[in-house]
C-alpha cells in the first residue's frame, strides 16, 4: 500500500488480509443491520430507490476486491520472469501475457504506428496504451485505486472530524472555541493550494496523498457533527441521563454518537466522490496516485491533440470514473432521503 519496499509476499499478505477483513466486516455488518429495524428499513428503502446504482457500486467493489486478492508465483506462458516474483492479483492473472509493444486501436489486428501484427489480434476491446498494456486491464486496476482513495481517506477523515465535532458541540465553552479556531484556520486556506503544498511536503506515496486529502476535507463534517451534537445536547433524554448520574463519556457514547451515525453514513458516501475528484485534480498536476484513472487521463492528455486522435485509452478511464461517482452520488442522495430523521421511524 505504501509503495515502499515491502516484499511481494508481504504485499500479497497485506492485500489478502484486508480483503478478508472487509468480507468479515461486511458479513458482521450485514447481520447487525438485519437485527436493527431502523437500519434494515433504511437498506430496503435504499434498494427500492436506487437499485441500479447500488448494483453498479457493488460491481466496482467486486473488481477492486478481485484486484486485491493476490499471491506470488505461477507464471503464464510468454510472461517475463520478473512478473513471476511479484504479487499478482486475480485481474493481473486474467490479463497475463496480453502485453503488446505499444498503441493499438480497439479490436485492431496491428500496432497503431508501425502496423506490425499484434500478438493478440482483435482481443483488445479498447486497444492498448503506450506501454502495450490492454486498456481494459489498466482501467479495471484503477477501480481498486479509486476505492482506496475514497475509502481509506474517509476512514481517516470521518473519525477525526466526528471526534472533534462531537466534543466541541457537546462540551461547548473553551473546547468549542479551540476547535472553532482550528476549523476556521483550516477552512480559510484554499483547499487545492493546501493540498498541493501538503503533498509537496509529505511526498507522493499513496498514504501521503490520502493523509493530505484527509487533512483538507475533515472540516466540513466536523462542522456538521458539531451542530448536531449541540442540538442533541439540549434534548430531554440527555438531561435525564445526566440527572441519573451518567458520565459525559457514557452520554457521548450511548446517546450522542448513535444519533450521529446516519450523518456518518451519508458523509462517507458523499465525501468519497469529492475525494476521488480531488485526486483527479492532483493527477492532472502530476502528483496523483499511481494507477488511478485521473493519472491515466493526465498521462494521455497529449494524445488528444494528435491526429488521428488516440481516444481509446482516455475514454474508458473517464467513463469508469464518471459512472462510479454518478452511482455513488445517487446512492448518497438516496441515503440522505432514507435516513432523514423525520422519516426514520416510519418505515418499520
Amino acid at each position, binding site marked *: 500500500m505504501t509503495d515502499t519496499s515491502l516484499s511481494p509476499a508481504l504485499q500479497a499478505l497485506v492485500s489478502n488480509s484486508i480483503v478478508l477483513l472487509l468480507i468479515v466486516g461486511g458479513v458482521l455488518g450485514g447481520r447487525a443491520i438485519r437485527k436493527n429495524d431502523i437500519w434494515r428499513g433504511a437498506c430496503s428503502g435504499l434498494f427500492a430507490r436506487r437499485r441500479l446504482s447500488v448494483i453498479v457500486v457493488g460491481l466496482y467493489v467486486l473488481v477492486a476486491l478481485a484486484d486485491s486478492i493476490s499471491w506470488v508465483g505461477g507464471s503464464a506462458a510468454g510472461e517475463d520472469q520478473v512478473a513471476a516474483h511479484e504479487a499478482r492479483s486475480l485481474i493481473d492473472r486474467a490479463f497475463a501475457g496480453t502485453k503488446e509493444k505499444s498503441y493499438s486501436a480497439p479490436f485492431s489486428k496491428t500496432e497503431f504506428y508501425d502496423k506490425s501484427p499484434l500478438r493478440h489480434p482483435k482481443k483488445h476491446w479498447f486497444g492498448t496504451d503506450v506501454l502495450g498494456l490492454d486498456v481494459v486491464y489498466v482501467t479495471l486496476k484503477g477501480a481498486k485505486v479509486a476505492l482506496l482513495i475514497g475509502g481509506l481517506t474517509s476512514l481517516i477523515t470521518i473519525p477525526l472530524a466526528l471526534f472533534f465535532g462531537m466534543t466541541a458541540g457537546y462540551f461547548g465553552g473553551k473546547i468549542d472555541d479551540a476547535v472553532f479556531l482550528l476549523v476556521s*484556520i483550516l477552512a*480559510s*486556506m*484554499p483547499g487545492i493550494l493546501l493540498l498541493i503544498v501538503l503533498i509537496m*511536503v509529505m511526498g507522493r506515496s499513496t498514504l501521503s496523498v490520502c493523509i493530505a486529502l484527509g487533512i483538507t476535507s475533515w472540516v466540513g463534517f466536523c462542522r456538521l457533527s458539531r451542530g448536531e451534537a449541540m442540538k442533541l445536547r439540549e434534548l430531554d433524554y440527555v438531561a435525564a441521563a445526566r440527572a441519573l448520574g451518567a458520565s459525559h463519556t457514557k452520554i457521548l457514547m450511548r446517546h450522542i454518537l448513535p444519533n450521529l451515525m446516519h450523518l456518518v453514513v451519508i458523509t462517507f458516501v458523499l465525501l468519497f466522490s469529492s475525494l476521488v*475528484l480531488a485526486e483527479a*485534480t492532483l493527477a*492532472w498536476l502530476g502528483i496523483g496516485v499511481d494507477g488511478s484513472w485521473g493519472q491515466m*487521463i493526465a498521462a494521455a492528455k497529449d494524445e488528444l491533440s494528435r491526429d488521428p486522435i488516440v481516444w481509446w485509452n482516455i475514454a474508458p478511464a473517464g467513463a469508469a470514473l464518471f459512472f462510479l461517482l454518478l452511482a455513488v452520488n445517487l446512492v448518497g442522495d438516496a441515503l440522505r432521503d432514507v435516513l432523514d430523521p423525520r422519516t426514520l421511524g416510519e418505515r418499520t
Partner: protein
Amino acid sequence: MVSYIVRRLLQFIPVLFLASIAVWAIIYAVPGSPATALVGTDATPEALAAAEQRLGLDKPVPLQYLQWLSGAVVGDFGDSAINGAPVLGQLAERIPASLQLAFFSLMIGLLLALPLGIVSALQPRSVLTKVINVYQAAALAIPTFWVGILLIIGLAVKRNVFPSVSNFVPLWVDPVGAFRHTFLPALCLGIYISGIIARFVSASLKDTLAQDYVRTARAKGAGEMAIMSRHVLRNSLVPILTQVVMAIPFLFTGSLLLEAGFGIPGLGAVTFEAIQANDFSTLRAMVFLGSLLFILGQILTDISYTLVDPRIRLQ
C-alpha cells in the same frame, strides 16, 4: 448591527493570524529552496547560498516570519521569484480576470440551480425531478477541467464557436467578446456549482413549504404564487445564501486548472505557475489572500443574514 460586525471581525483576527503562521510554516517545510528559482537547479552551492542571502533565507525562521508578516499587513508580499516584480502588484493585475470568471460562473450556476431546485421542491415525485436528481449527481461526478477539455475539443477546436484559448477581455470593454471568451470555463464551473446549490435550494424550499405558517397562509386563501413570494422565498434564503457565499472563495482559488487550461490570466493561473516554479512568495501571498477572502465571505454572509431575518437584526 455595527457592533455585531465589529465583534465578528475581531473574532476572526486570531484566525487570520494563526492561519498566516500555519501557511508560512507549511510552505517553509516544502523541500527545495525558492532560491533555485533565481539561479536554476544546477547552480554551485556558493551561488545558491548567495541567492538565499539575497532573499533573506539565512536569517532565523521566526525572524523571517515576522519580516513577512510586517510586510503582509501593509501589502508588501515581497517579489515574485519568477520575474522579480512585486507580488501584490502581479496579483492585483490578475484579479479582474478571475473576478469576471467567478461572476459568470456564479451567474450560470445560479441560473441552472434555481429553476432546478424550485422544480424539484414543488414537484418532488415528477419525472422531471428524477432527471434533475441524476443531473445533480452527474454534475458532481466529473472534474471541472475534464468538462473543459471536452468542451474545448467539441466546441472550440472542431467548430470554432468559442475561442480555444481565452484571453481576458474585460466586460466593460467588449461585452460580446468577454462573453465569448469566458463562457466555456464559466460553464464548467457553473455546472459544478449548480450541482451543489440546486440541492440546497430544493432542501431549503421543501423545509419552508412544510412549515406551519405556510399552512396558515393557505388557510387564509392565499394562492400558490402569493405564498411563494411572500412566505417561502425570504424564509428559504438563509441556507441558500450560505452556500452561495461559501462557493465564492472556491470560485477564485479552485479555478486553478481551469484558468491554466483555458489560458485565462487570472489568480488561479498565476498560482499554478507559482507552484511549478517554487515561487514561495507568491504562494504565501495567495494563501493569505485566500484566507482573507474566506473571512470576508463569512462576514458578508453574516451581514446578509441580518438583512433577511429580523430575528437576528434586532438582537
